[in-house]
């Protein structure tokens, strides 16, 4: 199985334009933020001190989620390509079992997701360190790595569900476009969740993206939140957290980071069951398992 995982990784990382396009969603959010989003938000939160230092990690948190969504999808697409190009039939002649082949695509996608998230983290933090003198706190690294692994995991499974409907390479591009665009909104990066209508907010609560972003922001913004809000009443701090999607409010209850994590795990379980169910119903496996 190692040989196949290594092959899959090599294919992903040798395709420079593929990497670029799989980071498109993340880069759009980053550039939009630099051009005008940050100005807008600093303006609307002018009562809070050091807004810029608060918003930089806010943006990083959301962009990390987008990165996890789009890069795992891009890596997992190889599965569909291999099936269509008959590569799967060839791999099936090796000593790797059918299940082993499927798992290596998943493992590859998870590795790609983690690596690309970390790369994006260092690139963005590096930029803000230079541009805004935002501190880069390396002590957060273990937590970030943990969240990166969890988000890679959930989005790999989520994208597996999406790709269950894609039998052709042609469909892949369309799915990637939709996912790339939607992820920025669902993760609450292009616009903070609080400024959106309630109905849209409710839709957002049905995908793992919001909770994923909330986890990242909780960790990344924690110290700056304490610093910025220490002289302000706690209701302003709470309002800020809810509007900006740092804490998610579910049925009048404000979720903690642990609860965010549990919700993501619950999503993982439900999606896994759906994937199994779909693979049972649609027996459109190109290659027979026997």
């Amino acid at each position: 199985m190692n040989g196949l995982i290594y092959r899959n990784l090599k294919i992903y990382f040798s395709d420079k334009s593929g990497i670029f396009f799989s980071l498109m969603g993340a880069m759009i959010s980053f550039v939009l933020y630099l051009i005008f989003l940050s100005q807008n938000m600093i303006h609307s939160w002018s009562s809070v001190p050091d807004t810029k230092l608060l918003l930089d990690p806010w943006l990083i948190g959301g962009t990390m989620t987008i990165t996890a969504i789009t890069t795992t999808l891009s890596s997992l697409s190889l599965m569909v390509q291999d099936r269509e190009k008959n590569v799967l039939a060839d791999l099936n002649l090796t000593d790797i079992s059918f299940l082993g082949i499927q798992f290596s695509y998943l493992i590859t996608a998870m590795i790609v997701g983690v690596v690309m998230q970390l790369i994006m983290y260092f690139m963005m933090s590096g930029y803000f360190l230079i541009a805004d003198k935002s501190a880069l706190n390396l002590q957060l690294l273990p937590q970030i790595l943990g969240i990166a692994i969890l988000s890679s995991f959930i989005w790999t499974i989520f994208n597996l569900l999406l790709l269950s409907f894609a039998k052709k390479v042609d469909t892949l591009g369309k799915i990637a476009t939709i996912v790339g665009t939607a992820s920025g909104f669902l993760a609450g990066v292009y616009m903070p969740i609080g400024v959106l209508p309630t109905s849209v907010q409710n839709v957002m609560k049905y995908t793992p993206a919001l909770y994923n972003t909330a986890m990242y922001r909780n960790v990344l913004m924690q110290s700056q939140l304490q610093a910025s809000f220490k002289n302000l009443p706690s209701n302003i701090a709470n309002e800020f957290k809810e509007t900006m999607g740092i804490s998610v409010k579910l049925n009048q209850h404000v979720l903690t980071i642990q609860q965010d994590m549990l919700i993501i795990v619950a999503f993982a379980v439900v999606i896994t069951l759906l994937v199994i169910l779909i693979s049972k119903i649609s027996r459109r496996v190109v290659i027979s398992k026997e």
Partner: protein
Amino acid sequence: MKLLQTTSLTKKFGNHTAVNNISLTINQGEMVALLGPNGAGKSTTINMLIGVLQPTSGEIIFGEKATNINDYRSEIGVVFQNSVLDEKLTVKDNMMLRAKMYSRPVIVQSLIEKFELESIWKQPYGSLSGGQRRRVDIARALISSPKLLFLDEPSTGLDIQTRTKIWEILDQLRKETGLTIIFTTHYLEESENADYVYIVDQGKVIAEDTVWGLQKKYTKNILQLTYTNGTSQTMTIDNKDDAIKILSEKGPLISDFEYRPGTMDDVFMNLTGKEIR
């Protein structure tokens, strides 16, 4: 010794029967051709033989006893019609990574020499010419030292030199290792490399024999005369004495002549009433 046998192999796609009751017997060490026009069902048959497609009905028996599909898969190598290697990776990566996917020991070095891969070893597979690709494809199929090698249209789109080269290598391999080879082709002259030929048309085997046997059975010898005045005449004459008689009668009038057995073209023509598409 029988290596692979199929009995009444049939594959239906909806209402369309792609392969209809095909029975093949392949002996150890033989080179067997499935010859037929495009769309005759050759690739479908190969795909069933390598376990990619499930037959609608019929049986495939490998070796003496019934084997399970995994044991069988480890005994075969396949050169697919469309390449299955990764264009962005180098020949080296393609070969070495495939080698890693086998749990048994594999020998890549001798394949590099046999298929002259040193010069293209570090090039991306996608940058290779058609002939170079085919060499890598066949080398990849042989990584696991299979007993039985399948080639699906191995020389489509290749020039004559490359084609000849590939058949030379395959012949040499057979001599050295006793490899059994099954290939499909729609090139009539290519089927002449085979020990045994199955002619397939519209999903059925319409004739099977050795090349010589097919020529004997389905064609007559051809006598072609070229006259001194520049015109020529072709006639089918199966008896050499008749031919000699005609030649001696017309001796003074002819400048040249040819007496030959029918080719695979003639076999195909006589069997199907049409030229191969």
